[in-house]
């Protein structure tokens, strides 16, 4: 079966600095792949190369077997690759629906001629999407600043889900959260997996990685240090791969 996403021999240099060298990895539908590694190991460079922020120096990115060359994150998003940033790209003063539709707001006509924002459509989408993620929020018109960190993370994920993202790239989605909220995000990732989406998950937290991932890809100084199935590895082994023991 063709993997949902395939990275083949990808390299990326910034001038004389080679941030990523000859990296190959795959993500299947319904699979959660964790990216681990120390700071500067190349995790961020890798996800930016996949999501269209950087152009790879060499190598290929394939989406369902087809080679893709994104020149902007927008293009990647249109093809179903959505990145959820650590600092939550949400406008805190807008509702969940308005955040889901940020930059592509639906319009409707009032009194048959006056174009206005379709707030009902936004609220409906917000309700459906949040229900799909098993998050139930009563006040759909409230700005997202009213919600907790985990709920806001769910909004960011919900936006990706609403726009039919097939690959979700999550950069430290649990880093800023308390323990109960972290669990909630982990369960969200389980939901995404169950829906057949591919997830790339960057985390420093091995506990989270072991709780949710199918496979782990460990990077060290821009190269693949090792790839393991979660069921067949241990915390110790992963740490050794990370620090190069």
């Amino acid at each position: 079966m063709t993997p949902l996403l395939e990275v083949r021999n990808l390299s990326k240099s910034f001038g004389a600095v080679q941030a990523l060298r000859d990296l190959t990895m795959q993500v299947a539908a319904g699979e959660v792949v964790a990216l681990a590694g120390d700071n500067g190991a190349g995790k961020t460079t890798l996800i930016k190369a996949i999501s269209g922020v950087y152009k790879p120096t060499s190598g290929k990115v394939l989406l369902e077997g087809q080679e893709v060359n994104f020149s902007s994150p927008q293009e990647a998003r249109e093809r179903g690759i959505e990145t959820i940033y650590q600092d939550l790209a949400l406008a805190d003063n807008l509702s969940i629906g308005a955040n889901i539709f940020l930059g592509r707001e639906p319009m409707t006509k009032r009194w048959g001629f006056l174009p206005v924002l379709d707030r009902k459509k936004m609220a409906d989408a917000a309700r459906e999407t949040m229900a799909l993620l098993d998050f139930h929020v009563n006040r759909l018109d409230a700005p997202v600043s009213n919600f907790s960190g985990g709920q806001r993370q769910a909004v960011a994920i919900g936006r990706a889900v609403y726009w039919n993202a097939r690959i979700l790239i999550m950069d430290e989605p649990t880093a800023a959260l308390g323990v109960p909220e972290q669990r909630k995000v982990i369960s969200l990732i389980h939901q995404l997996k169950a829906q057949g989406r591919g997830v790339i998950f960057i985390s420093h937290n091995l506990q989270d990685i072991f709780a949710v991932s199918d496979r782990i890809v460990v990077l060290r100084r821009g190269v693949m240090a090792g790839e393991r199935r979660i069921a067949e590895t241990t915390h110790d082994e992963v740490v050794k791969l990370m620090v190069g023991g």
Partner: protein
Amino acid sequence: MTTDARNETEKPPGGHVSPPADHAETAKTTIQRIADLRAWLFLAALIVGFEVWSRLSFGGTFIFNPFNITSIAIFAVAPLLLATGQTFVIITGGIDLSMGFIMGLAAVVAAHVINWATPGMGMPLAVLFGALVAIGVAMIPGFINGILVSRLRVPPFIGTLGMFGVARGVAFLLAGGTTVPVQNSFFAALGNGRIWGIPWIVIITAVFVLVMHYILSQTRFGQHNYAIGANEQAARRAGIDIKAHLLKLYILSGMCAGLAGFLYAARFSAGAAQAGEPLLLDSVAAVVIGGASLFGGSGTILGTVAGAFVIAVIQYGLVFINVEPFWQFISVGVVIIISVLIDQAQRRISGGRQSE
């Protein structure tokens, strides 16, 4: 909110949001609603206060006198128009300091153009032409402000401060350092005439402000304006063209100042470079009293309308009850400070959950 956390740990992951959380949300939004309405509450309190004072000291009414209402409305026209543009700018976290002198520039341009065009075009057409040219000219410094802020990354405070000086100088040069009287009775009639007892300039302002309210609250432009003010990076990631938006934004604010200048010239049948000089800070005050935060992200046109009327009622009311006019400055200052204190308190309360 420890109760919240406890409830969630007792549940399996992915459980529903616990009822206490919803309860807290409702309580918070009630406080927010009151804070959102504070400008209207100020306005009501002021009107009641002046009414009581007026009845006790000279047995007459303050607010039920149509003359007073019209005078306050005329008083509010120019600051409100400036404040309308300023609302859009402040919501993005910017500020437009040049609006006052753009207004003066537009007033001088309107006066010159109408004087020049009246013999050839006839009175009404000359006025229309003057309006278009004045507002068009006012959009030029707005455009330059927009370029400075969006492309050249100049902080709005500095960029528009520079344009404040430029517009001021150009306006005084065009006016020859004096006021420019207009010889056009149609223009004077527009500035001072009424229909059903309502001054034309008040009607024009009301229609314009309504359109601006629609743009801010019901269109993509308005929605993006809020998003940029809250989180510029999020807006950019969502595909919003920030540069184009900011450029349009400052042109819009120049346009508001242009209309204010044109209506000023109509009211006095003269253009003066210093027409908007004292109004700039009033416009910022109106926006802040109306509930906007200078940090960006919040504010509404309706709130600004209330804020502008709070200032107009204070200014007119104090004259009406024969208090030394200098008390105006003190009163407006106190209202601004109270307003910002309410804003801070509301932020502390509604921000409590995130800081956890």
